[in-house]
């Protein structure tokens, strides 16, 4: 019995790998035919007319682009802020550490 099992083992392995290979081959073929069918079923797409269509949906429309790039009122003053002396810039500290500043200074 043990000798039979030893004889069968290499045969079974070969058979299984051959079967597995065949399965992969079949599933690939099936996938390819499905994709082909899907592509055939789709109607032909019209050529993009506008530049926005040509460059895809991620590109913002001219109006949206304008909105996205519009400067804020703070940005308008950015040059002026750069030119201002340091002592005239009010420090606005919104960090959690700022809440403990007075205790830290007491410790000295």
């Amino acid at each position: 019995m043990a000798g039979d099992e030893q004889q069968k083992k290499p045969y079974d392995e070969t058979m299984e790998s051959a079967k597995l290979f065949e399965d992969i081959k079949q599933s690939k073929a099936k996938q390819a035919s499905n994709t082909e069918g899907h592509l055939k079923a789709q109607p032909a797409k019209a050529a993009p007319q506008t530049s926005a269509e040509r460059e895809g949906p991620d590109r913002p429309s001219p109006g949206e682009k304008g909105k996205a790039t519009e400067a804020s009122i703070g940005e308008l003053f950015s040059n002026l802020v750069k030119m201002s002396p340091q002592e005239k810039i009010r420090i606005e500290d919104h960090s959690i550490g700022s809440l403990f500043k007075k205790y830290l200074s007491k410790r000295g």
Partner: protein
Amino acid sequence: MAEPEVKAAEQEMLAGFLKSNETTGEINTADNKRAVIITRDLWKALTDAASERLAAEFDDVLYSAGLAWGAHAYAEFNKGVSSSQKTLYHIRNMGLSDFKQQFNTYLTCHGWGRFDIYQKHEIIFVDLFSSAFPEMVERHDAMTCSLMAGFFSGFFTELIGVELSCIELRCAGAGAEKCTFLVADSGITSSVRKWLIKGRTSDEIVEAIAAKEYQGKK
């Protein structure tokens, strides 16, 4: 236009700035602040008296009053914008066109005129159209808008978080079609003040700013 139609139009225009409560006799602004109506003569008498009393310091006093008014106006404007735009972190992040629209609404609902803001030669310029102040002062020989200069200085100082100064370059009171203000660091505005005293025109001053003449005079 028939007479009743004129009356109706006047009432509507007044209602845009002021509301009167017939029961209490109170007059309020569009945002419910008490207002007092005085005649032009009384206004003129008050400003003339203050001008005579304060002499050379009259403009400084007006500027200081404007500064406090501008800071207060900023707090009020900030409150209004924050309540309507919950996701806005700070007014500084408002889009320029949105800010102009909202701030114009704020100014016009009080009758202070229409404004525009722009950058030129790295300096901020503010135009004020139909400003109420030169109309009230009724002078046609000088720049009169120290109060408004103080107002813009106070407002933008609070908005940007940097101490800014403001000076009037051209005035409707001196015959210009609009009042133009310059908002910058006090070093630059004091140079501009000197140039104005020397008699340089607003166009010459803009050219001097473009050439950064103020840097040599700091």
